[in-house]
């Protein structure tokens, strides 16, 4: 039962990550990035947002690509920080693996499971990130080789799968007055801020602001506490 529930949770993400990997690989063909470069990027960077941004900025040069990577990856600092308490006892090599596997999807799934009280250690996280890494890398490889054959209609629906899955995962973590209030504040600040900042900066700004506001609200439950 537990196994089936894990598969049911991983499947939408794994499928979408694979297909996005194919789109990334295919899109790299229209830039000056070589096939080997696209595959190397997926193998070493493993960050969809940074890699897609790099495709768009590649012709502007190294500085633009590196700056956008830093900007888009900045949210990983907060994700990693929020896992650091539980990760304190991990040996160094497992911390390295954990860090490499931190992406929005593995983090989201792990956190939502933690709120259900299911995670006693990081074994789920390692499983999620390993599956997603394989999907992303194999998707890129196939995209580089045969990506031009994906129908446009499929690509159009694909872009809505991630936001919807995240919407559900977010709802699963809202289990206290503090979490609901900070989530509402986050949405309001984001919608106000979008007029003034780029979405990437905004994620970082509103996350810090809303979570600091949350410090003044009643003590929330720790993940997994009933």
């Amino acid at each position: 039962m537990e196994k089936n529930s894990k598969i049911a949770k991983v499947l939408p993400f794994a499928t979408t990550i694979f297909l996005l990997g194919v789109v990334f690989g295919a899109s790299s063909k229209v830039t000056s990035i070589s096939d080997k470069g696209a595959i190397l990027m997926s193998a070493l960077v493993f960050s969809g947002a940074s890699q897609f941004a790099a495709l768009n900025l590649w012709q502007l040069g190294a500085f633009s690509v590196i700056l956008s990577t830093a900007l888009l990856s900045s949210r990983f600092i907060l994700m990693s920080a929020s896992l650091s308490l539980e990760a304190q006892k991990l040996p160094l090599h497992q911390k390295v693996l954990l860090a490499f596997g931190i992406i929005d999807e593995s983090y989201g799934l792990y956190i939502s499971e933690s709120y259900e009280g299911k995670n006693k250690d990081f074994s789920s996280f390692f499983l999620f990130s390993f599956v997603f890494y394989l999907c992303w890398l194999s998707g890129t490889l196939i995209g580089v080789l045969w990506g031009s054959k994906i129908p446009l209609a499929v690509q159009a629906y694909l872009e809505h799968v991630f936001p919807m899955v995240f919407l559900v995962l977010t709802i699963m973590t809202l289990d206290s007055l503090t979490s609901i209030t900070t989530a509402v504040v986050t949405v309001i600040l984001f919608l106000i801020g979008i007029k003034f900042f780029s979405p990437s900066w905004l994620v970082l700004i509103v996350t810090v602001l809303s979570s600091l506001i949350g410090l003044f609200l009643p003590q929330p439950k720790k993940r997994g506490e009933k």
Partner: protein
Amino acid sequence: MTETGIILVMALITFAFRFLPLLLFNQSFTMPKWVERWFVILPPVILTAVTIQAIVTATSTETTKLPYLAYLACLGTAIKTKRLFLSLGVGLFTLVILNVFA
């Protein structure tokens, strides 16, 4: 800078951002209480921010507001059932229906 050089710097930056907090907040570091509390508050906030950014990005190229109805259907199902596949299915099905009949 060569193609491989740029990719290596990208890899280094993303990995450093993921790894350094895990390394810095180790067992020998006593975290202030408010920071511990902040780390408890952070996850739902991060997920909310990433979600709203993803929705804004995904709908930015749409010419109508119809996709928002699909997101509302997904949200409503998620609040009611807290089931991932069902909520995703309802959201995507609504999107397909809206695109067919709109």
